[in-house]
């Protein structure tokens, strides 16, 4: 063994244990899912014969799956962009020095400390047609004359779910943005003021460009979280009525555990992985390209 080979050998040996562990944790479930997706699998996970691509063909032939893919993209896009749009001004305000700043920060972070399932249940109750506070409030201030059955149709239920999704995602993104804002040196604002830049100009020319890496981070992480987020939709509508609020992860759960088709569910989960990978690759590429001067 030459000296240079030995030098390369030692560090590899040092990372080997954690590499093997990571490989095991990531690779085993992945291998298991990939195997299930090409087999006939019974309700109880017993592998039958080799199915080739039959599971994939079946889900792609299912009109519900196709509609669900589009709805998932709408869900992810709406929740992530909504979250960013809400979080930006909120974190700008929270970054200012004002009386009660600590309290305000705590209040914004609060939804984060409540489990997603619990938040979803509370909102479901709030939108209850007969006893919910939303209908009660709207009726008492005269906006509504009849109670609205919010969860009875997808056209009202799905936007509500998106709003709840935004609400629970805001704290995480605000945290990222506050970190980003505190990393921007204050003297550049001073210089800009001396050069005659107004607050709006400061925001567009300084804050936003300097926050960009943090916005990218927030977008990528949130897309992954929201795309895979199960509790809100499952608790509020279970993907119904008439599949009108189904997203891929609820569809997958239903296939696996309600309808007893784990093979197809495995195929859906691989499709989800592919969609996320494609998105992340494109997004990261775009960011890297536009970050170059």
């Amino acid at each position, binding site marked *: 063994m030459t000296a240079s080979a030995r030098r390369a050998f030692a560090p590899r040996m040092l990372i080997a244990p954690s590499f093997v562990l990571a490989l095991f944790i990531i690779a085993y479930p992945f291998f298991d899912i990939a195997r299930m997706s090409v087999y006939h699998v019974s309700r109880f996970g017993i592998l039958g014969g080799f199915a080739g691509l039959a599971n994939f063909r079946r889900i792609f032939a299912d009109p519900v799956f196709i509609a669900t893919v589009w709805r998932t993209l709408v869900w992810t896009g709406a929740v992530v962009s909504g979250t960013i749009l809400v979080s930006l001004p909120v974190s700008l305000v929270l970054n200012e020095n004002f009386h009660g700043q600590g309290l305000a920060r705590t209040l914004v972070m609060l939804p984060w400390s409540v489990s997603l399932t619990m938040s979803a249940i509370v909102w479901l109750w709030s939108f209850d047609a007969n006893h919910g506070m939303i209908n009660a409030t709207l009726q008492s201030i005269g906006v509504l004359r009849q109670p609205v059955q919010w969860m009875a149709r997808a056209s009202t239920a799905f936007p509500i779910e998106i709003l709840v999704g935004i609400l629970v995602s805001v704290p995480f993104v605000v945290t990222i943005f506050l970190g980003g804002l505190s990393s921007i040196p204050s003297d550049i604002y001073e210089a800009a003021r001396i050069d005659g830049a107004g607050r709006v100009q400061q925001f567009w020319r300084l804050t936003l460009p300097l926050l960009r890496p943090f916005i990218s981070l927030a977008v990528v992480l949130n897309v992954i979280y929201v795309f895979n987020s199960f509790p809100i939709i499952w608790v509020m509508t279970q993907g119904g009525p008439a*599949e009108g609020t189904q997203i891929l992860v609820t569809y997958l759960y239903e296939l696996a555990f309600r309808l007893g088709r784990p093979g197809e569910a495995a195929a859906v989960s691989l499709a989800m992985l592919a969609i996320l990978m494609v998105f992340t690759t494109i997004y990261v590429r775009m960011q890297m390209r536009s970050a170059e001067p």
Partner: protein
Amino acid sequence: MRILALPPEAPPMLRRLTSGLRRAALGAGALGVAAFAPQIARAATVHVTVAYYSAATGPYFKQMAAAFEKTHPGTTIKIDVVNWNNLQQVLQTDVSGGVPPDISIIGTRWLLSFVKDGIAEPLDSFMTPAFRNRFIPVFLKPGEIGGKVYGLPIAASARALFYNKTLLTKAGFPNGPKTWNDVIAAAKKIKAMGAYGFGLQGKEIETDVYWYYALWSYGGHLMGANGKVAFDSAAGVKALTLYKTMVDQGLTEPGVTNYTREDLQNLFKQGRLGMVITAPFLIGQIAKEAPKLAYGIVPVPTGTVQSTYAVTDSIVMFKASKVKKQAWQFLDFLFTKDNRVLFNKNEGFLPTTRAVAADPYFQDNKQLQVFVNLLPKAHFAPVIRGWENVAKAVIDAVQSVYLGKAQPAAALKTAATSADRALAQ
């Protein structure tokens, strides 16, 4: 070995984990430390998973376990109470993890999958003729597959129409509606009084069943002789059109796709709903929660024929069980008269054994007799593999019709195609 023993309340996940460890330890024992083996095998523990029917379910089974342990020293019964909505998933994960319970309550409609996958143990070798004779034959039938008994009917119910006496008397039907035309006429009057006429379920489990009531009442069938679905028939269209018309005329509660069976029962208990079709357990709930409510029970309204839906839940033994003898003794114990009477009284189910049916409590119970009398005309859910897929397709279809997104005939055609495709797999 002791270290690996878990308290009875240990969640299945943990149990699964330790059972793996235990297996590993047993393997090690077989290799060298065989002397320890007898110690492990001595005491038998029977794991029993039961479905949550009501707040009384858990205490009832724990009481049974304690009574059984007293007369069977050395046997421990561990009861796991699982919510209906999660039961299928829990069993599915337990079985695929290799640690099913020894006995479990399941929906009889799942039984075929259990049998086809070789998970359920046939019970015939345990059953004496006298034991078999305890049951009312119609209830033993659904647990029989390929000539063997795999599931014993632990719970049975049928459906009938509950009506609010105050509202229906004002509407001119003091003895309840008999036909769908009666239902419509009464609902119109009730609507004018400011209450909801006919409760129509449009959400979650059994949304499909609520439509089968009407389908069967027009002489329709779920499955045809050719093994394909048959609900997209003229009777089916008629039944769905009937419901849709009621929705459109405001004769149901508003926003039907927002109402589960429990929501409807709650409306009924509050006195805001004129009529609802449901199971006998509502009797017990009303007695407890709305004792002043004046109500009556009549058969499911007729279109052209009288019919109802009957359901049984089965208790099964798992093939993987290592304590089948003790498990069977516990089953035998559960199906003795007094234990069954107590269970049926607690939960409001129909008797499944002759001795219980002959008990004065059930003989003199006029309300329950309405359900019992309907049994000869009852339909059971078909025993076919993948039934959930058919139910799901029907739920999607009726929901889209209630929401005005599809026409009855077209929606049923679509559902039939997708159900047949799922069944063919």
